[in-house]
Every structure is written in C-alpha cells, then in structure tokens.
C-alpha cells in the first residue's frame, strides 16, 4: 500500500510514569513523590491493513504500552492519533476504532452471561443498531470465525478452551474495529491453536484491512506475520521499521541481542528437504 496516505494510527512521544510517595526520595532529592519512568517517548506510525509486532527484552514495559493502546490505562504524556484525529481514553467511539483481544479468555468471560449477551454488549453500548440487526451482526461474526451459530445460547463454563478463545476474538470483532490490539498471551498458545488464530488474523488483514498490533516473543512469528516491528528495551524504542529490514540487518544492540538469544542451540530447526 502507498505510504502517501495518512497513517491510521500514529503514536507520538508516548510516556508513562508511576509516582510513589517515598521518604528516601524526600530526603535525597527533596521530592516527596518519586517518579519511575515505565515508558519514555515511544512513537511509531502504522498504516491501514498493516500488522505491527512489538517485542521487548525482559523487564521492559510492553504490557503497559498494550494497555494504553487498548485504553485500559492513561498515558502520562504523548498523543495517540487515529487517522489524524486525537484519540482520548474516554472517547465513546473508541471501542469501535481500536479493540483489545483478551487472550486469557477463560478469565475475561463472565460466567453469569451467555455468549450471545457477551457479544451483544459492545454493540448495545457503542452502536445504534436495532436488536435484530445486532443479532444479525453477531451471527455474521460467528460464521466468520467458523463458530456454530447456536453457541450464543451456551455459557462460558460449557464451551471448550479453543472455542472460548474464538469467542473472545469474536467479541473484539463484532464492532468491526479498524485496529486490533493483543498482548503476548495470544502468542503463547499451543502451535496448532496458534496456527488457526494466525490464519484468522491474516484473513482479517487481507479481506477486511484491519490493522493489527501484537506483542510477541517468538521471532519466527514476527517474521511471518508482521509488516513492521517495534523493538523495545527498558521502556524506550530500540528499533522500529520494516520487519524484513530490522530483522535482516539489525542496527541496535538490543535487536541483535534478541536475535541471538532467540535462536538458541536448543530450538527446533526445520529439516529442509
């Protein structure tokens, strides 16, 4: 796609600090509140239908970044622009623009609500559709994810883990958001299930041009699915760019370190024949 068009998501100088009351800093730095930087000055751009994979190296703050993008936390400074317009945390339309995928589905589904209601809630609160339209939308989403249509009468306790995984994906998709965000738990699934999920997201990217942001730890996956990659270390941007270029000839030390750490002598190397 042409990079001339304006980016669908552009993050500018995003920073996050946590402050805590501490006597030591009061005595040493004469400040009652000690600020600990979690994210400092993260900025990247992403175009429609692209897939960004964010990787980090240990003790850095990838979850915080994902939370901010998903709208679960508030950044200390910096902007998140969605197709040119500033996207605030409490934007009522937010959930139809950028949506998180909750990979730990068994915890994020309310055991008291049946799947239909769970899928209906986002539609009810951020669209003006009539009930039958909402139901139609839900059915379409279910068949898109190859889930049985009568699963909407089931309860989370009665469906298998794989199904509930798809259900939480459907929950993210009913609003047909422009951007999907997911944390790394999405990538820790068993290979066979992961393959299915990867296929679904690829299909979404190809056919519906949904932009996707994944946090990943597996470089093979990153190389496979992502167009751009953001390497973070200690809460700062280490390297950002086209996946092929970054992983092809890494410039920064952090990227090199990740690459060499990933391909340990224990990792399975496919037999080429």
């Amino acid at each position, binding site marked *: 796609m042409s990079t001339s068009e304006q980016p669908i998501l552009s993050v500018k100088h995003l920073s996050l600090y946590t402050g805590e009351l501490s006597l030591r800093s009061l005595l040493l730095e004469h400040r009652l509140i000690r600020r600990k930087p979690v994210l400092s000055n993260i900025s990247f751009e992403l175009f429609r239908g692209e897939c960004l994979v964010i990787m980090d190296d240990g003790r850095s703050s990838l979850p915080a970044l994902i939370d901010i993008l998903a709208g679960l936390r508030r950044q200390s400074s910096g902007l998140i622009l969605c197709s040119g317009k500033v996207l605030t945390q409490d934007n*009522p339309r937010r*959930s139809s623009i950028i949506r*998180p995928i909750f990979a730990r589905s068994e*915890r994020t*589904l309310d055991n*008291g609500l049946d799947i239909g209601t769970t899928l209906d*809630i986002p539609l009810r*609160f951020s669209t003006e559709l009539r009930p039958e339209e909402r139901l139609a939308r839900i059915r379409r989403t279910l068949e898109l994810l190859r889930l049985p249509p009568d699963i909407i009468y089931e*309860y989370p*306790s009665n469906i298998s883990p794989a199904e509930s995984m798809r259900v939480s994906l459907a929950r993210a998709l009913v609003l047909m958001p422009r951007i999907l965000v997911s944390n790394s738990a999405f990538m820790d699934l068993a290979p066979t299930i992961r393959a299915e999920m990867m296929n679904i997201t690829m299909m979404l990217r190809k056919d519906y041009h949904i932009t996707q942001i994944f946090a990943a730890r597996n470089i093979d996956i990153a190389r496979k699915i992502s167009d751009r990659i953001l390497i973070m270390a200690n809460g700062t941007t280490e390297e950002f760019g086209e996946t092929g270029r970054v992983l092809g000839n890494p410039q920064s030390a952090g990227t090199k370190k990740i690459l060499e750490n990933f391909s340990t002598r224990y990792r399975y190397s496919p037999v080429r024949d």
Partner: protein
Amino acid sequence: MTSGTIRHWASCLWGTFRGRPLFLTGLIGLICYIIIIAAGTLFMGLDPYRQNISEYFVPPSLSFSFETGFNRFIMGTDDLGRDIFARVVFGARNTLFAAVFAAAAAAAVGIAAGFAAAISGNPVLNILRRTMLFLAATPSVLIAVLMTAIVDPSLRHVAEAVALSLLPGFISSSYRIAADELRKKYVIALRTDGAGKMYITRIILRNTAYLFAGMTARAFSTAIIDIASICFLGLGAHHATPELGLMISEGMAFIYRGNYWCIIFPGIAIVSAVLIVNIVGSALKTAIRKGVFENASS
C-alpha cells in the same frame, strides 16, 4: 424466556434445599416458626399481659383431665401467672420484627453506600466510608447505652442502635467486594466494550448477590442476638412488654427455686430463631450462587 428463568431459579432453590438434610430441616423449621407466630399472635387470642394471680408458677405440662380439658398453659406461667407461651410468641414477634428492621435498613443503606463509594471513586463518599470505621469499632450495646442517656429506652431505639452498629460492617465489606470485582478481568473487558457504569454495577451486583445474601442473613442473626442481649441488660424494652431477652432476665431470679421453664422456653425460641436464620441464609447463598453461575440446567 421469563418462564424459563423462573423455572431455573425454582429448580436451583429446591435442588439446594433438597440437597442437604440440614437445609431441609432449616426450611421446615422456618415454616413452623412463621406459622406458630402468625397463629399465636393473630388467631389464638392469646394475651401476654393478663395476670391470673391464683395460678403462678404453673409448671409446663401437656396433662389432660376430663374436668379442665387440656392444660391451659403448655409452657407454664411465671411469677405473675402470665401465660409463658403467649409471652414467648409475642416476644418472638417483637424481637424478630425489630431484628428484621435493623438488618434490612443496615443492608440497604450499607450496600448502596459501599457500591457508590467503590464504583464512582468519589472522594467525599470515600471519606464517609473512612468515618464509618468509627462506628465499626462501637458495639451495639455501647450505642444502646448512649441512647439511654439521651432518650427513654424502647424497642424501637434498640433496633436503631443495632442497625447503626451493623451499618459500617456492610459498608466496608461491600466496598471491598465491589473493589475486588472491579479489578477482575471480566469487568475490565466490559469497560473496553464501552459498557456504562450503571450496567457494570448491575453485572457486579448480579455476580456478588450470593455474598450479600449471606451477609444479610448473618446480620439478621446478629441483630436477633444483640437485641435480645440489650433487652436482657435492661436497656431496651419496657418491663411489661413481652421480649425474649427481658423474659430471661426476669426469669433468672427464679432459677434458684428451680423454676427453669421461665427461661428455658424463651431461650429455646431465641436459639432456634438464630439457628434457622443461619441455616436458611447459607442455603440461600448456595442457591443463588448456583442460579447465577451454573446455568447448564437452564
């Protein structure tokens, strides 16, 4: 749908009560208690105040003789010849009504305040919640004593004192429960779905209803005990009024003469009431939890 839900809840309730014999006995006991109180206070024309000086300290018996028919006082009479059965029935009614009032008021106000403080992180409400620590440390007896300093003692004031002493517990624990739920993953997911505060409140209330049922039942039993104790200490109802605790404190004067029945029957009434409330309360807790979370049957 509605009929389905009704059937679902009915099945959950009945299943729970049938599940454990303890629960079943509790249910039966509750029904008997209600029947006895209703019949005794409304239909049987008993009078807890009438004194027949001629026959004081009549021992309880179910004896039958052709002249007099059944013994009129199945639970005997006290020092003034008042029918203890009548006094127990009316006393149980008074005590239970006061306890119901206290528990219900405390539960309603407390849960509402706790949830409001938790969900709208309103500083004013939270300061109020903090000040509730003050009451949390003051037992009902103490409040009752303070009230006697201001107003004349009466059952109503006792009930108010007990409600006041129950309130802070409700507020703090409902706040804690709501805060814990708000931190859970599924609520966060709801928030990202764009659900409003009211809806989230509804969901949380639904998922924690069983906890509150248990709490309210415990508060009810505590209220019964406290009211009885306060009246026993002579800080509550006026002497003539039939009240279980009061009856016992009056009867204590006679146990050295061996007239145990003055205190045994009120005692049994109190203990059975509290036991029934506890058992039925825990049964309801289980049933509601089943009804909310085990939807496989519906």
